[in-house]
Structures are given as C-alpha cells and as structure tokens.
C-alpha cells in the first residue's frame, strides 16, 4: 500500500512474567497497513494485544522484532505532533479544569496561546463540555472524562487519530456524538485507527476491520463487504405446495428454507416486487417480507475471535 499512514511489519512483542521470566507473547508477527483518510477498526478480546500494539505505535514500548512506521517513518518524538491519542480511560491531572487540561496538552503539542484560545472553547462546545470548562477534571463523570479525552486527542488537529475504546462508558447521546466526530474527521481527510469492542459502532463507522486474537491478525476485511449482504430480502410463504413451487420456477428463486406448508425465499431488492406480485396470484399466503440478515461483523467475530 503506497503512503500508508500506519505500517506494521512482522511486529512481535513479548513480556517476561513469573519467577523464571518466561516470555509471554502479547503480539506475534503482526502485519497491518492503514490507508490515509480511512477509519480502521482494531477489534479483539481483552488481552489480544490491541493496547500493546497501540503503545508500540506511540513509542511507549519497543518491539522485540519487526517494525512500526507512522507516515512512512520509524516512530520518533517529532512525529507524535501529527498523532492524536485517546486512551481507553483518560487519566489526567485532577487539579486542572477542563480548560486547563486542554491548554496543557495543547502546549505540549506545540500549539500557541492564540491557537488554543480559538480551539479550546469550540472543542469544548462540540464535546458538550462548555458548561464544565472551569470545573476541575477530578470531579468529572466517566462519560465527561471520555469526552475530554477525545477533545485532547483532537485539539491539535492531528492527521492520525488513535482511539482506544472511545465510546466505552458513554451514554447513547455521547456515543452518537463520538461516532459523528469520527466520521467528520474522516471527511476532513484524517485517518482514524479505532480500537473497539462495540461491533455495532465498528459496523456503522469503519471502512476496514482488523480482528486480532492472541497477538495475531486473524481476519481483515473491508466493511463494505458486510453492507452488500443487507440488500437481500427474505419472503416467507405460508401454505406452500407443489403448485406454488411450479409457479415460481420461472423466477428460479433461492430457498433459505423449504418445508411442508412453509417456505422462505431469498431475493434481491430488484426482484422483490416481482416475486411478491407472482405469489399473490398463487394459492399461497405471504407470511412476511423482511430484510435478510446476512453474516454480521458479530458472526465473523465469533467465528474468528470468539471462544466458540
């Protein structure tokens, strides 16, 4: 992939545990490439190696072997000015107000006071925290803290956003806001690397998914593949009989289920109307017409990552 924002090649990272200091592999020969201006989900169970991968991307951890590159360069301090990171739980200094928290992180990112004066009120307003701007961060609820964490990640307008479970602990309104913001960032040409457990959020927001299990990528797919499956329809037919079967032969339907007195047919969105019209002329009854639920991300997750 040319000009990948994130390039991870054969990344292996282990920790030493126990008295014998045996290595426990958090990540093993992980490969991943993230294209610019895309939203990529990084999905896996607890302990799969997601946070280790993210911390290696940020230079907090050093790989045992393999390489990690951001914007085509090996990770180094100066590159981090182009990255915004929201940790799973945003821990900050409780004695700072929300305003001061953002000012502190903004200045660490190299922003000037003038830039901060303009950016902070707008961002706090966007996050629904403007009324709490002068409140100490230590008094914030979990949801407010998460939103403040996202605000500090967005503050310096980074090209790459690394978000670790950004919607965890948020109420439905907060979740919707965060997903909206992620989509807006993509529309602005930013790249979003999103680690999440909430598969419905991933399905609704992301372009591509990487599923990780025991430190290895076990599944990688564009999410458009899932969207296509939802364009099919299921038609339930009651009083199913041989005459009805013969009458439908010309349409060559796909049977999801066929039994005595009942059948379920699968058809595309275009052929749905013709099929229903045909069925009304036959001695059968239409039980229901509903969107076909194809393989969801959850099904894939359970197949590749789940314990089952």
């Amino acid at each position, binding site marked *: 992939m040319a000009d990948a924002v994130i390039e991870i090649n054969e990344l292996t990272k282990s*920790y030493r545990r126990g008295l014998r200091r045996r290595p426990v592999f958090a990540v093993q020969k992980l490969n991943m490439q993230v294209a610019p201006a895309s939203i990529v989900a990084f999905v896996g169970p607890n302990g799969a190696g997601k946070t280790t991968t993210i*911390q290696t991307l*940020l*230079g*907090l*951890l*050093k790989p045992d072997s393999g390489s990690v590159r951001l914007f085509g360069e090996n990770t180094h*301090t*100066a*590159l*981090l*000015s182009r*990255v915004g*990171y929201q*940790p799973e*739980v*945003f*821990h*900050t*200094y*409780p*004695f*700072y107000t929300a305003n001061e928290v953002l000012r*502190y*992180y903004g*200045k*660490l*990112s*190299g922003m000037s006071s003038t830039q901060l004066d303009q950016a902070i009120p707008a961002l706090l307003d966007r996050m629904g925290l403007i009324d709490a701007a002068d409140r100490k961060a230590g008094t914030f609820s979990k949801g407010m803290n998460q939103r403040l*964490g996202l605000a*500090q990640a967005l503050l310096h307008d980074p090209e790459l956003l690394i978000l670790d479970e950004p919607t965890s602990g948020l109420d439905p309104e907060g979740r919707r806001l965060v997903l909206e913001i992620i989509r807006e960032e993509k529309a602005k040409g930013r790249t979003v690397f999103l680690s999440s457990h909430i598969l419905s959020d991933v399905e609704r927001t992301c372009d591509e998914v990487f599923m990780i299990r025991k430190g290895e990528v076990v599944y990688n797919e564009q999410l458009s593949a899932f969207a296509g499956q939802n364009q099919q329809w299921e038609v339930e037919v009651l009083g199913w009989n041989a005459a009805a079967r013969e009458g439908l032969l010309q349409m060559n339907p796909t049977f999801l289920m066929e039994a005595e007195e009942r059948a379920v047919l699968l058809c595309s969105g275009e052929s749905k109307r013709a099929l229903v019209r045909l069925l009304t002329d036959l001695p059968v009854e239409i039980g229901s017409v509903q969107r076909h639920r194809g393989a969801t991300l959850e099904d894939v997750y359970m197949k590749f990552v789940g314990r089952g």
Partner: protein
Amino acid sequence: MGRVFLIARNVFRGILHRRILYLWIAAIGLLILRSLPAIFFNFGSEALQTVMRQRAVSGALDTWSTLCIALAIFMGASAIGSELSAKTIVTVFARPIRRWEFLLGKWLGIQAFAVLSLGLGLLVAFTVGSLLDADFQYNILGISLAQSAIAISLYSGIAIALSTVTGSGLAGALAVILAFMPGLVTYLVDSSNSTAHASGLVLDYVVPPGYTSHYSATIHAPIPPDAFNIRGRENRRGGVPPFMAQQAPEPDIDYNDESWTLLKNAGYAAIFFVLGCIILTRRELRLA
C-alpha cells in the same frame, strides 16, 4: 524549553494539590514546639532570654532547611512513580515531548518548590530575627543557603534518577541513605583497616560530598558573661557555664573549601540527573 517550563509548572501545581501545605503546617508546628522553651521559658535574665530566642531562630532555620531537602527527596522519588500509577504519563508521552525534557521539567519544578519553601522560611526567620535584634552573619547565611539550594538540587536529582529504575519508596530510601553516606565514607577512608580504607576510597567517588549545615552560626548570639548572675547571686565559678559555652562555638568556615564542595555537589547532581535521563529514554513505559 517551553515544554520543560510547562512540566515544571505542572509539578508545582501538583505539589500544592497533594496537600503538601498541610505537611508544611505540621512542620511549622514542629518548629514552634521546638522553639517553645526559648519563647516561653523564663531564663531570669532579659539578655539571656533574647540570646536563647535568637538561637531558636537560627536553629529553626536549620531544621527548616533539612525539611526542604527531605521534601525535595520525597517529591523527586515519586516523580515518575506518581505519573505511572496515575497513568497520566501515557497521554503526556503521546505528545512530541522528549523524555529528558519531561524529567528536566519535573526536576526544575521540584527544586523551585523546595527553594521557594526555603525562601519563605528565611523570610520568617528574618522577620522574627529583626524583631529580636538578631545580628545576622550574612556571609555564613549566604554559604548556608547555597549549601541548602545545592543539596535540594542534588538529592532531588538523585531521587528522580532512582525513580526511573525503581519504585518511589525504594528511590526515596536510597536517596536518604546516600544523604547519610558522607559520614560513613569519611570514617572508612580514615580507617586503619586496609579493606575498609579501600572501600572508603571507592565510595568516595560514588557518594557526593553532601550537605553541611552552618545555620546555627547565622545569628551571632553569644551567651552574655553575666547571664547566670540570677537575682544577684554570682555564678560560683563566674561567667558562662562550660556546657552553655560549647553550644555555639564560633564557626571556622573555609569558604574556598565550601565553594569546592558546592561545585562537587552540583556536578554530582548533574551526573545523576543525566543518568536518569538516559535510563528513562531507553526504558519502556508499560502500564497495567
């Protein structure tokens, strides 16, 4: 340097937030308790009363200086540990800040707070001393303040450096042990036992010269000769009792030697700090 000062300011705010002021209030209480006899005890002679009070001021300044150094060790030892346990370090190091900048900011913030505390103590001592017409020995006071400031810098630097490789408790304990080592080193070097002498010589290179206090001599307050002629009764031997006279010997300060010690302490502070920076830069920051 902007980021360094930002971190330093953050450290300053953090110290205040840690309710360290309560610790200071407790320390002030301790100092008042220590000075209570001088303030309230009736020595029977106005002149002696004043002298004892003046000596209490210089003694309190001595204790206060030690407390400031202890605070610097405590803050330095928890510099990295507190950030790791609070997990605030991740969001900081996800920014374009170099680890030596972070550590330097921490060091400056701690020193600034400890030196400011020392300054406040000095201000109080001056005010009380002036009320008591104390005769401050400014050259001794100057070298004492310099010793304190460099000791704050040295021991906070050592504690910070140790905090990059070990937990806060152990870092603080090791820094305190190092603060008490110079006496042991002198003993070992002077030892007639060849092994002890050799180990003393080796330790002499590792252990900084450390802190020597001259605060007790910052106020010139000799006991008046007629101090014990209470209610017209002559002291049997006349003059000051020997045990009182020994309490405030005239200091024999070699300023060149003191300046050299200051320089060596500053050098050790820089070496320990640079070692801490190297370790932190190479260290992985793994959080649970």
